[in-house]
């Protein structure tokens, strides 16, 4: 299954969850200061393991960066 993860196309196993995608970029549930959106909808940390990704979906995993 292909998902667009932080701007890059990645291959994840079928049934992969938001938590799996987050893990690819080094983020685990419980990490502080991060957030995940799937197809533009924010997924609360508690739900990362339950949200199953769909083929072609967009996943964004973000953190605070220096900014104005």
């Amino acid at each position, binding site marked *: 299954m292909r998902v667009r993860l932080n701007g890059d196309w990645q291959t994840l196993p079928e049934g992969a969850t938001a938590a799996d995608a987050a893990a690819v970029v080094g983020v685990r549930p419980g990490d502080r200061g991060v957030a995940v959106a799937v197809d533009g909808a*924010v997924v609360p*940390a508690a739900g990362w393991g339950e949200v199953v990704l769909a083929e072609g979906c967009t996943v964004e995993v973000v953190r*605070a960066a*220096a*900014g*104005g």
Partner: protein
Amino acid sequence: MDQMTIGGRTLGSRLLLGSGGFAHPAALSGAIHAAQAEVVTVAVRRVEHAPGGLLEAIEAAGASVLPNTAGCFTAREAVTTAHLAREAFATDWVKLEVIGDARTLLPDAVELLVAAERLVADGFTVLAYTTDDPVLGRRLEDAGCAAVMPLGSPIGSGLGIRNPHAISLMREAVSVPLILDAGIGTASDAALAMELGCDAVLAATAVSRAADPPAMARALHLAVEAGRTARGAGRIPRLHHAQASTGDEGRPEVSA
């Protein structure tokens, strides 16, 4: 200085700081201390581009985080970015930026208002970065924004307050806190903002790219207090001619 209240929260400092543009993290910490800032903006970026530790550094310096929506060009982007920020930073506050032009980074009035209405409905405390347009400022207040943040001049330009008259009209038009955002270059700009009636000033590039960021942070901190104190002190009127501060009465005859 007297405290201010935004969205029900009391702040002792009237200088907000941006976290962007510092040469290294320690410089940010030093600037927060020197500015005595309680609120520091951060952006929301993909983890690969956000090295981590920023929140901790800001909190260690005694400040809290104000996420921004920098880089968003539509209400939709800004709203989602705000929701990501709320999830990541556990705060309802957001500095709402919806940009309309890449070269000037000026706000887009229409998208801004749409995003503000949506975020207020979603329970956010919205501080809206806006043009110096008093009518738009009033509309943002009417939409429920907790603060209105007019620009002095384009972001990072250092051009100061290009239109003091407009800022004074905004002060008349807006009842919620008015925070001068964007364009501050140096201390006198910050003092002027406060004299025009702003409740606070946000500085980013002015500090982070100064030759000596903590020194400029301290200068702006002083200037904000100076300007606010001056406004409260009731300045003298402007006169076309001179008015002697020394009376002529009793001047000795010494021209002999």
